[in-house]
């Protein structure tokens, strides 16, 4: 019996490289869009979490707690199996993008909220006293300062997001994990399939994680 990493299995993978390339492309596309969505949600809900208004803070808490305390898989299944019951049939790509974006948006909201709260109150006051609106104060004075602190955790968040796109495999999402899995279950060449898949994830995640560490060390120097 040939071993799990027999040479002919690698050859088979090499000749089917386009299957993996397709999955890799899909994973990157979903990651980029979901990350953008997560950032937009993170900024919007993170800002709500720092508001004086109790209603806004309540909305922030509901979103964050609901999302952070249920598994991502359930949220994806809800979008995939639940929404059609109320007449909303989303393409798989959208299910993945929305599910993953909304899930990480909750974590981004916490990062943004902490970043904003770390900016001294005097900064708000100076800007308001100059006549800036709340919006402009946020945009020109508070968020740029919050950003410095939020960058390293947000970069780590991007790494997690990319890895978590693999849950799309459970709904036949066409992503890297899905293609690797279905290719391997057709020919049972699991060894090379998972090794190559793992390496592809490393290829994007490791540079990002290294970048996050670099940002963190820069922050330590400047604080």
């Amino acid at each position, binding site marked *: 019996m040939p071993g799990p990493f027999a040479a002919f299995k690698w050859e088979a993978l090499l000749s089917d490289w386009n299957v993996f390339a397709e999955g890799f492309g899909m994973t990157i596309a979903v990651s980029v869009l979901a990350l953008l969505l997560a950032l937009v949600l993170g900024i919007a809900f993170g800002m709500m979490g720092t508001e004086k208004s109790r209603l806004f803070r309540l909305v922030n808490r509901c979103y964050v707690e609901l999302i952070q305390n249920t598994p991502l898989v359930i949220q994806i299944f809800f979008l995939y199996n639940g929404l059609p019951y109320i007449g909303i049939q989303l393409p798989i790509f959208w299910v993945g993008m929305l599910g993953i974006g909304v899930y990480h948006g909750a974590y981004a909201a916490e990062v943004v909220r902490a970043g904003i709260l770390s900016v*001294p109150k*005097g*900064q708000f*006051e*100076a*800007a*308001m*006293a*100059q*006549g*800036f*609106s709340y919006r*402009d104060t946020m945009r*020109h*004075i508070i968020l*740029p*300062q919050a950003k*410095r602190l939020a960058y390293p955790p947000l970069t780590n968040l991007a790494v997690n997001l990319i890895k978590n796109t693999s849950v799309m495999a459970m709904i036949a999402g066409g992503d890297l994990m899905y293609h690797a899995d279905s290719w391997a279950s057709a020919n049972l060449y699991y060894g090379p399939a998972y090794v190559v898949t793992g390496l592809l994830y490393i290829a994007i995640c490791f540079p990002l994680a290294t970048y996050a560490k670099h940002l963190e060390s820069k922050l330590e120097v400047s604080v």
Partner: protein
Amino acid sequence: MSRVIRLENIHKSFGKLEVLHGIDLEVKEGEKVVIIGPSGSGKSTLIRCINLLEKPEQGAVYVDQVNLLSNTQQLSRVRQSMGMVFQQFNLYPHMTVLENLMLAPMKLKKESGEEAEKTALVYLERVGLQDKAHSYPAQLSGGQQQRVAIARALTMKPKIMLFDEPTSALDPEMIQEVLDVMVALADEGITMVVVTHEMGFARRVADRVVFMADGKIIEENAPEEFFTHPQHERARQFLSKIERAV
């Protein structure tokens, strides 16, 4: 002369604690008013009520005849005409000195970058810091930061300047450079409300000294009168304490 600031029966609480118990204060155009009083007496809260950084629960705040509590859509415009200088400077640390000075004129008055830079450099020169235009606030001494903060307020060409203990966070050797800038400013006829314990400054500049204690105005008088013949026991006690300290 017209009254540019009028506070009527201001009550302000933080939670259950009322810290201002019905304050009335009027400031005329061009007048310099110095507010003094023991720590915790409500001086900061009072001066912050003038531009509504603190919102009183009761009473009225008029600036330039505008009732700020009932005309919120005018608040931004009125704030633009009132500069404020804080004890902790509050410069924007992520911007250079020049950018600190240019932000409000560009974003609020829609001045071009060129125009804003020209104005900024004029005011930086006035506070003697044109060579620091491209420094970041963290690279400046406290006294320099406070002078930049004053210049930043002036770039909006305000009619009124509010100062909340502008020299209290400074090392002693830097106090004078900031006071000098403030005295020069006072000589130009701008309306000023200054919370400070610098008696030399008050004597030199103030038209009127307002003494506060326990959230009330206890006494108002011309500086010479106030410092030499305080009418109330609280004022006498307070003056003897700061005189001993100086």
